């Protein structure tokens, strides 16, 4: 039997609750109020048990009202593939999402190593290139994207450090 979305969600929450429950047992509990008080381990244990109970309830209710797979599949519409900026027949969503997350991770990694200006310049430029729709891609747009990234990041750095007196990572440039 193919599980529906809610049943999968219930399984996911249940797995997390079990992991949380096991981790709760490793809390170094110091019960300062032995006479009727609860320790720092009690609430996490309660949360884990409540989540398991709710997840079981969600699983049961979702499975009992599950429509036949055929009906569900009939209702679901598959998104039409489109030609992306690489010229391949790939739906825009997963590719763009993956690349956006990768670039964000790269940005977080280089934020203090390269510094705010350089990391931000690379991130902004790459993101603008990534998100520019194919019909607007041109050499002019490419130049504009990188020039805009440079001006924006430097202006932001100057505003935050000089005007607002906030510290941003200098990195290798300064």
């Amino acid at each position: 039997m193919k599980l529906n979305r809610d049943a999968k969600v219930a399984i996911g929450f249940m797995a997390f609750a079990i992991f949380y429950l096991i981790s709760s047992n490793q809390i170094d509990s110091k019960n300062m109020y032995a006479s009727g008080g609860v320790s720092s381990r009690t609430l996490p244990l309660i949360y884990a048990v409540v989540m398991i109970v709710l997840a079981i309830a969600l699983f049961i209710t979702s499975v009992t009202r599950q429509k036949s797979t055929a009906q569900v599949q009939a209702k679901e519409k598959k998104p039409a593939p489109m030609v992306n900026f690489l010229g391949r027949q790939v739906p825009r969503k997963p590719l763009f999402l993956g690349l956006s997350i990768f670039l964000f991770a790269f940005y977080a990694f280089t934020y203090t190593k390269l510094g705010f200006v350089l990391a931000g310049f690379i991130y902004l430029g790459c993101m603008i290139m990534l998100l520019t729709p194919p019909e607007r891609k041109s050499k002019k747009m490419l130049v504009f994207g990188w020039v805009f990234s440079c001006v924006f990041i430097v202006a932001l750095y100057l505003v935050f450090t000089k005007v607002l007196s906030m510290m941003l990572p200098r990195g290798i440039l300064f």
Partner: protein
Amino acid sequence: MMTMLLQGFGTVVGNPLILLAMLGGVFIGIIFGSLPGLTTVACLSMFLPVTYVMSHEMGLSMLTAIYIGGMSGGLVSAILLNIPGTPSSIATCFDGTPMAKKGQAGRALGIGVFASIVGNFIGVFAMIFISAPLAFFTLKFGPWENFGVTVFALTLIASLCGKNILTGLLAAVFGMMFSTVGLDQIDSSTRFTFGMSELTSGFGLLTVLVGMYAVSEVLRTASAEPEKATVNEDFKMKGIGLSMKEIIEQIPNLIRSSLIGLCIGILPGIGGSTANIIAYSVTKSSSKYPEKFGTGIPDGIIASESANNASVGGAMIPLLTLGIPGDGSTALLLGGFMLHGMTPGPLLFQTNGSTVYAIFASMIISTVFMGLVMFLCMRWFVKILKVPSFILIPCIIVLCAIGAYTLNYRSFDIWALLFFGILGLALSAVKVPIAPFILGFILGKDFEVNLRTGIQYAASDRFMLLHRPIAMAFLVLAIFFFIYSFIKTSKVNKKEASA
């Protein structure tokens, strides 16, 4: 109260920089509200770090101005593009777009702005007159009362968000679990840090809020197909688009819709996005000419815009008096308060009364600014609708990262931002509502502290809770809402199954 309010006006009007910050906030809020895909939440996330260096009054006035501007800005694209700039303006499209197609775009915009101003005023004045007495009343609350309120708020938000109360409750518990990370507030035990020193202080509220709301939203917009729409630039705004006779005829609609917006705004988890649709359908069902709705009549625009703007004042009430945010924007405002060393709740009026009344005054002035800016700069906003989202989206991320980094000056918070962004995206993808998670995270610590303190107090009296009528009332209400929502969900599911 009036003296304090006048003092608040004095603080705001006496400092031109505060007025400038508010004007800028309203302007930026309208821009973000009008751009489809970008919302007030993203705007507030961007501008939180800017308020670090401002005074309490200036920073919070600017943030509330953004909130007011953002709520009203959605009507621009709803009328001119037939795409609501924010979910709060969905119902504005129903009559706004047909009106624009008839060549009355200017009139529709004028009516929308007028209704926004009236709705905002009603919401803000209700907030001023309700908040102070309510805060005074909640001062009497002890740990059990606070525990009862927390349970009620969590049950309410879980019941009202999404189609399934179980997923709402799971999200709330999930959020509460994340609130346990770090040092225990009572006995300082280390919990769920997995040997990472950065986790000792737990996840920052702003990191979670900005990640779950703004970063996930930006990632979603980045991965979505760009919406292609033509901007209707052929319009002329002449006044508010209504004659005096029409205004008088619309007064019941204005008041009714604003009150609907106000009441819905007070409830945690649902705000302008629900208020505008409910107000529209109530106005339609009580109208003498329901068949005309959707063909381009002022009634629909007035209902939608007055309701969503009145919800701003409504959502501020639980935030200021109980520290419970009504929606995503007020959750970020809560972060703004905390950034400035203030904790919204019953004590706020006593400890920071002057700042609170300055915020009240600034919200009234921001409403006036919003009206002026909308009427005078409408053509400019229409030009901004053409700014491509592929330029704006990365800029938002960069600004959000600055906000996260400057919290503790460590890159760990940027990673946390990404983690919560992906988590928010994943939860949305599987239709698990984010609002209960956020509320669970915000209230989790208070929930634990109040419960544990209450149990300590009750050590000598096992039935202490039964002698606390307010706490009992909130717990009974929570049970009632849970049962009601469960029955309602079951009925809907049965209907869907039989269809």
